[in-house]
Protein backbone atom coordinates (compact mmCIF):
# COMPACT_ATOMS: atom_id res chain seq x y z
CA UNK A 1 0.00 0.00 0.00
CA UNK A 2 2.72 2.45 0.98
CA UNK A 3 4.48 1.88 -2.29
CA UNK A 4 1.63 3.65 -4.05
CA UNK A 5 2.27 6.74 -1.97
CA UNK A 6 5.97 7.04 -2.62
CA UNK A 7 6.74 10.36 -4.28
CA UNK A 8 7.77 10.22 -7.90
CA UNK A 9 11.45 10.94 -8.33
CA UNK A 10 12.38 14.51 -7.48
CA UNK A 11 9.07 16.06 -6.63
CA UNK A 12 6.33 15.57 -4.06
CA UNK A 13 2.70 15.45 -5.05
CA UNK A 14 0.29 17.69 -3.18
CA UNK A 15 -2.17 14.88 -2.61
CA UNK A 16 -2.01 11.20 -3.37
CA UNK A 17 -4.87 8.78 -2.91
CA UNK A 18 -4.23 5.05 -3.10
CA UNK A 19 -7.10 2.53 -3.39
CA UNK A 20 -9.43 4.90 -1.61
CA UNK A 21 -12.75 3.34 -0.59
CA UNK A 22 -15.45 5.27 1.21
CA UNK A 23 -18.74 3.95 2.51
CA UNK A 24 -21.61 6.25 3.42
CA UNK A 25 -24.15 4.18 5.30
CA UNK A 26 -24.61 0.93 3.38
CA UNK A 27 -23.40 2.35 0.08
CA UNK A 28 -19.86 2.24 -1.09
CA UNK A 29 -19.47 5.62 -2.79
CA UNK A 30 -15.83 5.43 -3.86
CA UNK A 31 -14.56 2.10 -5.19
CA UNK A 32 -10.82 2.22 -4.87
CA UNK A 33 -9.76 5.61 -6.22
CA UNK A 34 -6.09 6.07 -6.99
CA UNK A 35 -5.03 9.57 -7.84
CA UNK A 36 -2.00 11.86 -7.83
CA UNK A 37 -2.59 15.58 -7.66
CA UNK A 38 0.47 17.59 -8.60
CA UNK A 39 1.59 20.63 -6.65
CA UNK A 40 1.20 24.10 -8.04
CA UNK A 41 -1.68 23.44 -10.36
CA UNK A 42 -5.43 23.69 -10.40
CA UNK A 43 -7.24 20.38 -10.64
CA UNK A 44 -10.99 20.08 -10.99
CA UNK A 45 -13.05 17.00 -10.24
CA UNK A 46 -16.00 16.67 -12.63
CA UNK A 47 -18.64 14.05 -13.21
CA UNK A 48 -22.37 13.43 -13.23
CA UNK A 49 -24.53 13.94 -10.15
CA UNK A 50 -23.87 11.25 -7.58
CA UNK A 51 -20.48 10.34 -9.02
CA UNK A 52 -18.87 10.83 -5.60
CA UNK A 53 -17.10 14.15 -6.31
CA UNK A 54 -17.79 15.76 -2.94
CA UNK A 55 -17.06 12.52 -1.13
CA UNK A 56 -13.70 12.27 -2.88
CA UNK A 57 -12.84 15.84 -1.95
CA UNK A 58 -13.82 15.23 1.68
CA UNK A 59 -11.79 12.05 1.80
CA UNK A 60 -8.77 13.90 0.38
CA UNK A 61 -9.19 16.48 3.15
CA UNK A 62 -9.26 13.72 5.75
CA UNK A 63 -12.80 14.58 6.79
CA UNK A 64 -14.25 11.11 6.20
CA UNK A 65 -13.32 7.71 7.54
CA UNK A 66 -12.04 5.72 4.58
CA UNK A 67 -10.11 2.64 3.57
CA UNK A 68 -6.93 3.09 1.63
CA UNK A 69 -4.36 5.81 2.00
CA UNK A 70 -4.20 9.54 1.47
CA UNK A 71 -0.88 11.35 1.53
CA UNK A 72 -0.58 15.10 1.93
CA UNK A 73 2.65 16.64 0.64
CA UNK A 74 4.38 13.30 0.88
CA UNK A 75 3.19 12.31 4.36
CA UNK A 76 0.38 9.92 5.16
CA UNK A 77 -2.62 11.93 6.34
CA UNK A 78 -2.97 9.71 9.39
CA UNK A 79 0.52 10.69 10.54
CA UNK A 80 -0.09 14.42 10.28
CA UNK A 81 -1.36 16.02 13.46
CA UNK A 82 -4.77 17.71 13.17
CA UNK A 83 -3.36 21.18 13.64
CA UNK A 84 -0.55 20.80 11.13
CA UNK A 85 -2.98 19.30 8.64
CA UNK A 86 -5.32 22.24 9.21
CA UNK A 87 -2.46 24.61 8.39
CA UNK A 88 -1.65 22.76 5.18
CA UNK A 89 -5.13 22.05 3.81
CA UNK A 90 -7.90 24.62 3.64
CA UNK A 91 -11.37 23.30 3.03
CA UNK A 92 -14.43 25.06 1.65
CA UNK A 93 -17.58 22.97 1.91
CA UNK A 94 -20.70 23.02 -0.20
CA UNK A 95 -23.76 24.99 0.90
CA UNK A 96 -22.74 25.33 4.50
CA UNK A 97 -25.38 26.97 6.64
CA UNK A 98 -24.99 28.45 10.07
CA UNK A 99 -22.74 31.10 11.52
CA UNK A 100 -25.49 33.65 10.99
CA UNK A 101 -24.70 35.47 14.20
CA UNK A 102 -20.99 35.84 13.56
CA UNK A 103 -19.68 38.94 11.86
CA UNK A 104 -17.94 38.62 8.51
CA UNK A 105 -14.65 39.49 10.20
CA UNK A 106 -15.13 36.81 12.87
CA UNK A 107 -15.95 34.20 10.21
CA UNK A 108 -12.81 34.98 8.21
CA UNK A 109 -10.78 34.97 11.44
CA UNK A 110 -11.87 31.35 12.01
CA UNK A 111 -9.50 30.53 9.16
CA UNK A 112 -6.64 31.62 11.40
CA UNK A 113 -7.51 29.14 14.17
CA UNK A 114 -4.95 26.55 12.95
CA UNK A 115 -2.20 29.16 13.31
CA UNK A 116 -3.17 30.59 16.67
CA UNK A 117 -2.12 29.31 20.06
CA UNK A 118 -4.95 28.24 22.36
CA UNK A 119 -6.75 31.28 23.82
CA UNK A 120 -4.23 33.64 22.22
CA UNK A 121 -5.55 36.87 20.77
CA UNK A 122 -5.10 37.29 17.00
CA UNK A 123 -1.68 38.60 16.08
CA UNK A 124 -1.00 41.41 13.62
CA UNK A 125 -0.17 38.68 11.11
CA UNK A 126 -3.60 37.12 11.62
CA UNK A 127 -5.28 40.49 11.15
CA UNK A 128 -3.26 41.00 7.99
CA UNK A 129 -4.17 37.57 6.58
CA UNK A 130 -7.87 38.14 7.26
CA UNK A 131 -7.81 41.58 5.67
CA UNK A 132 -6.02 40.25 2.58
CA UNK A 133 -8.50 37.40 2.25
CA UNK A 134 -11.56 39.60 2.67
CA UNK A 135 -10.22 42.11 0.16
CA UNK A 136 -9.45 39.33 -2.31
CA UNK A 137 -13.10 38.28 -2.39
CA UNK A 138 -14.42 41.86 -2.17
CA UNK A 139 -16.02 41.11 1.17
CA UNK A 140 -14.01 43.69 3.10
CA UNK A 141 -16.74 46.32 3.15
CA UNK A 142 -19.10 44.05 5.04
CA UNK A 143 -16.63 43.05 7.72
CA UNK A 144 -18.80 44.39 10.54
CA UNK A 145 -22.03 42.86 9.23
CA UNK A 146 -23.29 39.50 10.41
CA UNK A 147 -23.26 36.54 8.05
CA UNK A 148 -27.03 36.19 8.40
CA UNK A 149 -27.54 39.59 6.77
CA UNK A 150 -25.83 38.63 3.53
CA UNK A 151 -27.23 37.18 0.32
CA UNK A 152 -26.25 33.70 -0.87
CA UNK A 153 -23.51 34.96 -3.18
CA UNK A 154 -22.13 37.42 -0.62
CA UNK A 155 -22.10 34.70 1.97
CA UNK A 156 -20.19 32.41 -0.39
CA UNK A 157 -17.53 35.09 -0.87
CA UNK A 158 -17.10 35.41 2.89
CA UNK A 159 -16.76 31.63 3.27
CA UNK A 160 -14.21 31.68 0.46
CA UNK A 161 -12.30 34.38 2.32
CA UNK A 162 -12.40 32.15 5.41
CA UNK A 163 -10.72 29.38 3.44
CA UNK A 164 -8.18 31.79 1.92
CA UNK A 165 -7.29 33.17 5.35
CA UNK A 166 -5.82 29.80 6.30
CA UNK A 167 -3.08 30.52 3.72
CA UNK A 168 -2.70 26.80 3.25
CA UNK A 169 -0.49 25.12 0.69
CA UNK A 170 -3.43 23.08 -0.59
CA UNK A 171 -6.94 24.45 -1.07
CA UNK A 172 -9.93 22.15 -1.50
CA UNK A 173 -13.17 23.77 -2.62
CA UNK A 174 -16.51 22.09 -3.15
CA UNK A 175 -18.71 24.04 -5.60
CA UNK A 176 -17.04 27.35 -4.79
CA UNK A 177 -18.98 29.15 -7.52
CA UNK A 178 -22.39 28.36 -6.06
CA UNK A 179 -24.50 31.54 -5.99
CA UNK A 180 -21.74 33.69 -7.50
CA UNK A 181 -22.72 36.05 -10.30
CA UNK A 182 -20.62 36.05 -13.52
CA UNK A 183 -18.31 38.94 -12.54
CA UNK A 184 -17.48 37.25 -9.26
CA UNK A 185 -17.03 33.92 -11.01
CA UNK A 186 -14.43 35.67 -13.16
CA UNK A 187 -12.84 37.13 -10.02
CA UNK A 188 -12.69 33.68 -8.50
CA UNK A 189 -10.99 32.39 -11.63
CA UNK A 190 -8.35 35.10 -11.38
CA UNK A 191 -7.89 34.40 -7.70
CA UNK A 192 -7.29 30.70 -8.31
CA UNK A 193 -4.81 31.47 -11.09
CA UNK A 194 -2.96 33.86 -8.76
CA UNK A 195 -2.80 31.20 -6.05
CA UNK A 196 -1.48 28.64 -8.49
CA UNK A 197 1.08 31.15 -9.75
CA UNK A 198 2.33 31.38 -6.15
CA UNK A 199 2.85 27.62 -6.19
CA UNK A 200 -0.25 26.67 -4.23
CA UNK A 201 -2.39 23.71 -5.17
CA UNK A 202 -6.12 24.13 -5.77
CA UNK A 203 -8.54 21.22 -6.07
CA UNK A 204 -12.14 22.08 -6.81
CA UNK A 205 -15.36 20.25 -7.48
CA UNK A 206 -17.40 22.01 -10.16
CA UNK A 207 -20.62 20.89 -11.77
CA UNK A 208 -20.39 23.42 -14.57
CA UNK A 209 -18.24 21.82 -17.26
CA UNK A 210 -17.29 25.08 -19.00
CA UNK A 211 -15.83 26.41 -15.78
CA UNK A 212 -14.10 23.09 -15.12
CA UNK A 213 -12.48 23.28 -18.57
CA UNK A 214 -10.68 26.43 -17.40
CA UNK A 215 -8.62 24.46 -14.90
CA UNK A 216 -5.21 22.91 -15.61
CA UNK A 217 -6.15 19.30 -14.96
CA UNK A 218 -9.42 17.42 -14.91
CA UNK A 219 -10.32 14.34 -12.94
CA UNK A 220 -13.35 12.72 -14.57
CA UNK A 221 -15.23 10.75 -11.97
CA UNK A 222 -18.18 8.46 -12.58
CA UNK A 223 -19.94 6.07 -10.21
CA UNK A 224 -17.16 6.22 -7.68
CA UNK A 225 -14.30 5.54 -10.08
CA UNK A 226 -11.82 7.76 -11.86
CA UNK A 227 -12.47 7.44 -15.62
CA UNK A 228 -9.78 9.82 -16.72
CA UNK A 229 -7.21 12.21 -15.31
CA UNK A 230 -5.50 14.58 -17.70
CA UNK A 231 -4.95 18.09 -18.97
CA UNK A 232 -8.26 19.81 -19.52
CA UNK A 233 -7.32 20.86 -23.04
CA UNK A 234 -6.41 17.33 -24.16
CA UNK A 235 -8.77 15.59 -26.64
CA UNK A 236 -8.71 12.38 -24.54
CA UNK A 237 -10.06 14.34 -21.59
CA UNK A 238 -12.82 15.77 -23.75
CA UNK A 239 -13.68 12.28 -24.96
CA UNK A 240 -13.87 11.03 -21.37
CA UNK A 241 -16.17 13.93 -20.49
CA UNK A 242 -18.49 13.16 -23.39
CA UNK A 243 -18.53 9.51 -22.36
CA UNK A 244 -19.55 10.11 -18.73
CA UNK A 245 -22.17 12.65 -19.74
CA UNK A 246 -23.78 10.25 -22.27
CA UNK A 247 -22.54 12.35 -25.24
CA UNK A 248 -25.10 14.93 -24.26
CA UNK A 249 -22.79 17.89 -24.48
CA UNK A 250 -20.43 19.35 -27.03
CA UNK A 251 -17.04 20.81 -26.28
CA UNK A 252 -16.06 23.58 -28.66
CA UNK A 253 -13.27 26.12 -28.84
CA UNK A 254 -14.43 29.68 -28.58
CA UNK A 255 -12.08 32.69 -28.44
CA UNK A 256 -9.23 30.45 -27.39
CA UNK A 257 -11.17 28.78 -24.55
CA UNK A 258 -12.86 25.42 -24.37
CA UNK A 259 -16.58 25.68 -23.75
CA UNK A 260 -19.14 22.97 -23.08
CA UNK A 261 -22.54 23.39 -24.68
CA UNK A 262 -25.63 21.23 -24.23
CA UNK A 263 -26.18 18.92 -27.18
CA UNK A 264 -29.55 19.30 -28.88
CA UNK A 265 -31.64 16.16 -29.59
CA UNK A 266 -30.96 16.59 -33.32
CA UNK A 267 -27.22 16.42 -32.73
CA UNK A 268 -27.68 13.34 -30.58
CA UNK A 269 -29.17 11.38 -33.43
CA UNK A 270 -26.64 12.30 -36.06
Amino acid at each position, binding site marked *: MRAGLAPAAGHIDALVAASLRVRLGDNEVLHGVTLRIAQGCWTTIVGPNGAGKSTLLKALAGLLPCQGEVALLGRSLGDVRGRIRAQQIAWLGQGEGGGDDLTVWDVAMLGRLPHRAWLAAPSAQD*DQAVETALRATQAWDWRARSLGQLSGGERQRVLLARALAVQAQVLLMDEPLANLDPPHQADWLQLVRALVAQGRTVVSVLHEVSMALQSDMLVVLDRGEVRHHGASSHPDTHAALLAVFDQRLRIVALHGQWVALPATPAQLHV
Partner: protein
Amino acid sequence: MMDQLRTGSQSRRAAVLAGVLAALSVVLLVLALGVGSTGFESVLRIADDPLAAQIVRDIRAPRSLGAWFAGGLLGLAGAVAQGLFRNPLADPYLLGSASGAALGVALALAVAGSTPMAAEWLVRLGLTSAAFAGAVGAVLLTLALARGVQHTLRLLLAGVVVGVVLGALGQLVLMLRPEVMLAMQAFSLGTTSFVGWTSCWLMGSVCLLCLLVAGAQAHVLDGLSLGEATAVSLGLPLARVRALLVTVLALATGTAVAQTGLIAFVGLAAPHLVRSLVKTTHGYLILLSGLMGALLLLAADTLARWLIAPQELPVGVLTAVLGGAYLLFLMHRRSPSRGGL
Protein backbone atom coordinates in the same frame (compact mmCIF):
# COMPACT_ATOMS: atom_id res chain seq x y z
CA MET B 1 -6.41 51.44 14.88
CA MET B 2 -6.59 47.81 13.87
CA ASP B 3 -9.39 47.37 16.34
CA GLN B 4 -11.48 49.86 14.41
CA LEU B 5 -10.69 48.19 11.13
CA ARG B 6 -12.16 44.89 12.20
CA THR B 7 -15.40 44.40 14.04
CA GLY B 8 -14.51 46.95 16.67
CA SER B 9 -18.07 48.22 16.81
CA GLN B 10 -19.46 44.78 17.61
CA SER B 11 -16.94 43.82 20.28
CA ARG B 12 -17.31 47.25 21.83
CA ARG B 13 -21.07 46.74 21.86
CA ALA B 14 -20.56 43.38 23.54
CA ALA B 15 -18.33 44.94 26.21
CA VAL B 16 -20.82 47.77 26.77
CA LEU B 17 -23.68 45.27 27.04
CA ALA B 18 -21.72 43.29 29.63
CA GLY B 19 -21.18 46.47 31.62
CA VAL B 20 -24.84 47.48 31.39
CA LEU B 21 -26.05 44.02 32.44
CA ALA B 22 -23.66 43.98 35.39
CA ALA B 23 -24.71 47.49 36.48
CA LEU B 24 -28.41 46.63 36.18
CA SER B 25 -27.77 43.50 38.23
CA VAL B 26 -26.23 45.54 41.03
CA VAL B 27 -29.13 48.00 41.03
CA LEU B 28 -31.66 45.18 41.03
CA LEU B 29 -29.81 43.32 43.80
CA VAL B 30 -30.04 46.39 46.02
CA LEU B 31 -33.69 46.77 45.13
CA ALA B 32 -34.34 43.08 45.79
CA LEU B 33 -33.00 43.48 49.33
CA GLY B 34 -35.96 45.78 49.99
CA VAL B 35 -38.63 43.48 48.63
CA GLY B 36 -40.26 40.95 50.92
CA SER B 37 -43.12 40.44 53.33
CA THR B 38 -41.80 43.12 55.72
CA GLY B 39 -41.19 45.64 52.98
CA PHE B 40 -38.42 48.14 52.38
CA GLU B 41 -38.39 49.37 56.02
CA SER B 42 -36.28 46.36 56.93
CA VAL B 43 -33.42 47.81 54.93
CA LEU B 44 -33.77 51.20 56.61
CA ARG B 45 -33.88 49.69 60.10
CA ILE B 46 -30.99 47.35 59.46
CA ALA B 47 -28.68 49.30 61.81
CA ASP B 48 -30.82 49.28 64.94
CA ASP B 49 -33.22 46.36 64.50
CA PRO B 50 -31.51 42.95 64.73
CA LEU B 51 -34.58 41.17 63.32
CA ALA B 52 -34.67 43.44 60.29
CA ALA B 53 -30.93 42.95 59.82
CA GLN B 54 -31.39 39.20 59.98
CA ILE B 55 -34.21 39.25 57.42
CA VAL B 56 -32.13 41.23 54.97
CA ARG B 57 -28.86 39.43 55.59
CA ASP B 58 -29.96 35.82 55.92
CA ILE B 59 -33.10 35.65 53.80
CA ARG B 60 -33.30 38.35 51.17
CA ALA B 61 -29.61 38.68 50.35
CA PRO B 62 -28.88 34.98 49.73
CA ARG B 63 -32.07 34.32 47.80
CA SER B 64 -31.55 37.37 45.57
CA LEU B 65 -27.95 36.49 44.91
CA GLY B 66 -29.03 32.85 44.52
CA ALA B 67 -31.59 33.82 41.89
CA TRP B 68 -28.85 35.75 40.10
CA PHE B 69 -26.46 32.80 40.10
CA ALA B 70 -29.14 30.26 39.11
CA GLY B 71 -30.15 32.48 36.21
CA GLY B 72 -26.51 32.80 35.25
CA LEU B 73 -26.09 29.03 35.23
CA LEU B 74 -29.17 28.56 33.06
CA GLY B 75 -28.23 31.38 30.69
CA LEU B 76 -24.71 30.16 30.05
CA ALA B 77 -25.98 26.58 29.73
CA GLY B 78 -28.47 27.78 27.14
CA ALA B 79 -25.75 29.46 25.09
CA VAL B 80 -23.58 26.33 25.30
CA ALA B 81 -26.48 24.04 24.33
CA GLN B 82 -27.46 26.19 21.35
CA GLY B 83 -23.87 26.33 20.14
CA LEU B 84 -23.18 22.66 20.72
CA PHE B 85 -26.35 21.48 18.96
CA ARG B 86 -26.22 24.24 16.33
CA ASN B 87 -29.86 24.83 17.05
CA PRO B 88 -31.34 28.10 18.30
CA LEU B 89 -34.19 26.21 19.95
CA ALA B 90 -31.91 24.07 22.08
CA ASP B 91 -32.72 24.36 25.74
CA PRO B 92 -30.28 23.57 28.57
CA TYR B 93 -32.67 20.91 29.84
CA LEU B 94 -32.72 19.00 26.55
CA LEU B 95 -30.45 16.20 27.68
CA GLY B 96 -33.10 15.11 30.15
CA SER B 97 -31.78 16.88 33.24
CA ALA B 98 -35.12 18.50 34.10
CA SER B 99 -37.17 15.33 34.20
CA GLY B 100 -34.29 13.49 35.87
CA ALA B 101 -34.21 16.08 38.63
CA ALA B 102 -37.99 15.96 38.98
CA LEU B 103 -37.92 12.18 39.30
CA GLY B 104 -35.14 12.43 41.90
CA VAL B 105 -37.15 14.91 43.95
CA ALA B 106 -40.36 12.90 43.64
CA LEU B 107 -38.57 9.77 44.83
CA ALA B 108 -36.91 11.62 47.71
CA LEU B 109 -40.21 13.15 48.78
CA ALA B 110 -41.95 9.80 48.56
CA VAL B 111 -39.26 8.17 50.70
CA ALA B 112 -39.08 11.04 53.20
CA GLY B 113 -42.88 11.01 53.22
CA SER B 114 -44.31 12.19 56.52
CA THR B 115 -41.19 13.79 57.99
CA PRO B 116 -42.13 16.32 60.67
CA MET B 117 -41.56 20.00 59.91
CA ALA B 118 -38.65 20.12 62.38
CA ALA B 119 -36.52 18.22 59.91
CA GLU B 120 -37.42 20.49 57.02
CA TRP B 121 -33.86 21.62 56.43
CA LEU B 122 -32.62 18.08 56.44
CA VAL B 123 -35.26 17.17 53.86
CA ARG B 124 -34.29 20.24 51.90
CA LEU B 125 -30.67 19.09 51.76
CA GLY B 126 -31.84 15.63 50.76
CA LEU B 127 -34.02 17.08 48.02
CA THR B 128 -31.18 19.16 46.66
CA SER B 129 -28.92 16.14 46.43
CA ALA B 130 -31.72 14.03 44.94
CA ALA B 131 -32.41 16.68 42.29
CA PHE B 132 -28.74 17.00 41.40
CA ALA B 133 -28.26 13.22 41.28
CA GLY B 134 -31.41 12.89 39.16
CA ALA B 135 -30.29 15.57 36.71
CA VAL B 136 -26.77 14.22 36.26
CA GLY B 137 -28.06 10.63 36.16
CA ALA B 138 -30.49 11.54 33.39
CA VAL B 139 -27.72 13.15 31.31
CA LEU B 140 -25.55 10.07 31.80
CA LEU B 141 -28.45 7.89 30.71
CA THR B 142 -28.91 10.05 27.62
CA LEU B 143 -25.21 9.73 26.82
CA ALA B 144 -25.37 5.97 27.25
CA LEU B 145 -28.42 5.68 24.98
CA ALA B 146 -26.81 7.92 22.35
CA ARG B 147 -23.57 5.92 22.68
CA GLY B 148 -21.41 8.95 23.32
CA VAL B 149 -21.50 12.62 22.50
CA GLN B 150 -20.25 12.56 18.90
CA HIS B 151 -23.57 12.22 17.12
CA THR B 152 -25.56 15.31 18.06
CA LEU B 153 -28.83 14.28 16.43
CA ARG B 154 -28.74 10.97 18.27
CA LEU B 155 -27.94 12.86 21.46
CA LEU B 156 -30.98 15.12 20.98
CA LEU B 157 -33.31 12.19 20.29
CA ALA B 158 -31.98 10.23 23.26
CA GLY B 159 -32.52 13.34 25.40
CA VAL B 160 -36.15 13.52 24.28
CA VAL B 161 -36.69 9.84 25.04
CA VAL B 162 -35.07 10.08 28.47
CA GLY B 163 -37.09 13.21 29.21
CA VAL B 164 -40.39 11.55 28.34
CA VAL B 165 -39.67 8.26 30.12
CA LEU B 166 -38.30 9.81 33.32
CA GLY B 167 -41.12 12.34 33.30
CA ALA B 168 -43.65 9.51 33.14
CA LEU B 169 -41.89 7.68 35.98
CA GLY B 170 -42.01 10.85 38.06
CA GLN B 171 -45.75 11.12 37.46
CA LEU B 172 -46.14 7.50 38.46
CA VAL B 173 -44.40 8.14 41.79
CA LEU B 174 -46.73 11.09 42.39
CA MET B 175 -49.76 8.97 41.61
CA LEU B 176 -48.68 6.29 44.07
CA ARG B 177 -47.91 8.84 46.80
CA PRO B 178 -50.40 11.67 46.23
CA GLU B 179 -49.54 13.30 49.59
CA VAL B 180 -46.21 14.59 48.21
CA MET B 181 -47.95 16.29 45.31
CA LEU B 182 -48.02 19.75 46.92
CA ALA B 183 -44.33 19.72 47.82
CA MET B 184 -43.58 18.48 44.32
CA GLN B 185 -45.58 21.34 42.87
CA ALA B 186 -43.26 23.87 44.51
CA PHE B 187 -40.28 22.18 42.88
CA SER B 188 -41.88 21.93 39.44
CA LEU B 189 -42.77 25.60 39.43
CA GLY B 190 -39.35 26.68 40.59
CA THR B 191 -38.69 28.81 43.64
CA THR B 192 -35.76 30.61 45.20
CA SER B 193 -37.24 30.75 48.69
CA PHE B 194 -35.03 27.95 50.03
CA VAL B 195 -31.75 29.38 48.80
CA GLY B 196 -29.35 30.06 51.66
CA TRP B 197 -25.77 31.23 51.72
CA THR B 198 -24.43 27.70 51.22
CA SER B 199 -26.42 27.27 48.02
CA CYS B 200 -25.25 30.69 46.94
CA TRP B 201 -21.58 29.85 47.28
CA LEU B 202 -22.12 26.50 45.61
CA MET B 203 -23.92 28.01 42.62
CA GLY B 204 -21.41 30.84 42.44
CA SER B 205 -18.45 28.48 42.26
CA VAL B 206 -20.10 26.19 39.72
CA CYS B 207 -21.06 29.23 37.66
CA LEU B 208 -17.47 30.48 37.62
CA LEU B 209 -16.11 27.04 36.79
CA CYS B 210 -18.58 26.54 33.93
CA LEU B 211 -17.86 30.01 32.54
CA LEU B 212 -14.13 29.33 32.55
CA VAL B 213 -14.41 25.90 30.94
CA ALA B 214 -17.00 26.94 28.34
CA GLY B 215 -15.23 30.22 27.65
CA ALA B 216 -11.98 28.39 26.95
CA GLN B 217 -13.76 26.25 24.32
CA ALA B 218 -15.83 29.05 22.82
CA HIS B 219 -13.71 29.29 19.66
CA VAL B 220 -14.60 25.67 18.89
CA LEU B 221 -18.30 26.57 19.01
CA ASP B 222 -17.56 29.41 16.57
CA GLY B 223 -15.91 26.96 14.20
CA LEU B 224 -18.72 24.45 14.68
CA SER B 225 -21.30 27.05 13.68
CA LEU B 226 -20.01 26.74 10.10
CA GLY B 227 -20.57 22.99 10.14
CA GLU B 228 -18.83 19.92 11.44
CA ALA B 229 -16.67 19.41 8.35
CA THR B 230 -15.34 22.95 8.50
CA ALA B 231 -14.66 22.64 12.22
CA VAL B 232 -12.69 19.43 11.71
CA SER B 233 -10.85 20.95 8.74
CA LEU B 234 -9.73 23.76 11.05
CA GLY B 235 -8.08 21.16 13.27
CA LEU B 236 -10.50 21.68 16.16
CA PRO B 237 -10.67 18.76 18.64
CA LEU B 238 -14.44 18.26 18.38
CA ALA B 239 -14.60 15.00 20.34
CA ARG B 240 -12.86 16.35 23.43
CA VAL B 241 -14.72 19.64 23.37
CA ARG B 242 -18.13 17.97 23.03
CA ALA B 243 -17.44 15.81 26.07
CA LEU B 244 -16.30 18.87 28.05
CA LEU B 245 -19.29 20.97 27.06
CA VAL B 246 -21.82 18.23 27.80
CA THR B 247 -20.24 18.03 31.26
CA VAL B 248 -20.67 21.79 31.61
CA LEU B 249 -24.32 21.46 30.57
CA ALA B 250 -25.00 18.68 33.07
CA LEU B 251 -23.20 20.47 35.90
CA ALA B 252 -24.79 23.86 35.28
CA THR B 253 -28.37 22.66 34.84
CA GLY B 254 -28.03 20.05 37.61
CA THR B 255 -26.82 22.66 40.09
CA ALA B 256 -29.44 25.25 39.14
CA VAL B 257 -32.30 22.76 39.14
CA ALA B 258 -31.22 21.30 42.47
CA GLN B 259 -31.24 24.69 44.19
CA THR B 260 -34.19 26.41 42.58
CA GLY B 261 -36.36 23.78 40.89
CA LEU B 262 -37.49 23.80 37.30
CA ILE B 263 -37.26 27.34 36.04
CA ALA B 264 -38.54 27.57 32.51
CA PHE B 265 -37.38 29.63 29.56
CA VAL B 266 -34.44 31.50 31.12
CA GLY B 267 -31.93 29.20 29.44
CA LEU B 268 -33.72 29.41 26.11
CA ALA B 269 -34.48 33.13 26.11
CA ALA B 270 -31.24 34.59 27.52
CA PRO B 271 -29.02 33.74 24.50
CA HIS B 272 -31.75 34.94 22.11
CA LEU B 273 -32.03 38.24 23.91
CA VAL B 274 -28.27 38.69 23.74
CA ARG B 275 -28.14 37.82 20.04
CA SER B 276 -30.90 40.28 19.26
CA LEU B 277 -28.76 43.01 20.83
CA VAL B 278 -25.28 42.13 19.59
CA LYS B 279 -23.74 39.82 16.98
CA THR B 280 -20.69 38.29 18.52
CA THR B 281 -18.53 35.22 18.99
CA HIS B 282 -19.34 32.49 21.49
CA GLY B 283 -16.77 33.77 23.96
CA TYR B 284 -18.82 36.90 24.51
CA LEU B 285 -22.14 35.13 23.89
CA ILE B 286 -21.62 32.67 26.74
CA LEU B 287 -20.60 35.40 29.18
CA LEU B 288 -23.39 37.74 28.11
CA SER B 289 -26.01 34.97 28.17
CA GLY B 290 -24.92 34.15 31.71
CA LEU B 291 -25.28 37.79 32.73
CA MET B 292 -28.58 38.11 30.88
CA GLY B 293 -29.99 34.94 32.45
CA ALA B 294 -28.86 36.13 35.87
CA LEU B 295 -30.53 39.50 35.40
CA LEU B 296 -33.72 37.92 34.02
CA LEU B 297 -34.14 35.50 36.89
CA LEU B 298 -33.31 38.12 39.52
CA ALA B 299 -35.86 40.48 37.94
CA ALA B 300 -38.48 37.73 37.73
CA ASP B 301 -37.78 36.70 41.33
CA THR B 302 -38.05 40.26 42.61
CA LEU B 303 -41.26 40.71 40.65
CA ALA B 304 -42.61 37.41 41.99
CA ARG B 305 -42.03 38.61 45.54
CA TRP B 306 -43.49 42.06 44.92
CA LEU B 307 -46.53 41.54 42.68
CA ILE B 308 -48.86 40.07 45.31
CA ALA B 309 -46.83 40.97 48.44
CA PRO B 310 -46.87 39.86 51.22
CA GLN B 311 -47.64 36.62 49.34
CA GLU B 312 -45.34 35.57 46.51
CA LEU B 313 -45.69 33.90 43.14
CA PRO B 314 -43.53 30.91 42.16
CA VAL B 315 -40.81 32.49 40.05
CA GLY B 316 -41.00 29.67 37.50
CA VAL B 317 -44.54 30.75 36.62
CA LEU B 318 -43.34 34.27 35.93
CA THR B 319 -40.36 33.20 33.82
CA ALA B 320 -42.62 30.87 31.82
CA VAL B 321 -45.18 33.61 31.13
CA LEU B 322 -42.62 36.33 30.42
CA GLY B 323 -40.28 34.04 28.50
CA GLY B 324 -43.11 32.62 26.41
CA ALA B 325 -44.35 36.10 25.57
CA TYR B 326 -40.85 37.19 24.61
CA LEU B 327 -40.28 34.21 22.31
CA LEU B 328 -43.59 34.88 20.58
CA PHE B 329 -42.57 38.50 20.12
CA LEU B 330 -39.23 37.44 18.66
CA MET B 331 -40.93 34.97 16.33
CA HIS B 332 -43.30 37.57 14.91
CA ARG B 333 -40.73 40.35 14.69
CA ARG B 334 -38.38 38.41 12.45
CA SER B 335 -39.09 38.84 8.79
CA PRO B 336 -40.88 35.86 7.21
CA SER B 337 -38.21 35.60 4.51
CA ARG B 338 -35.72 34.42 7.10
CA GLY B 339 -38.05 31.69 8.24
CA GLY B 340 -38.71 33.00 11.74
CA LEU B 341 -36.71 31.32 14.48
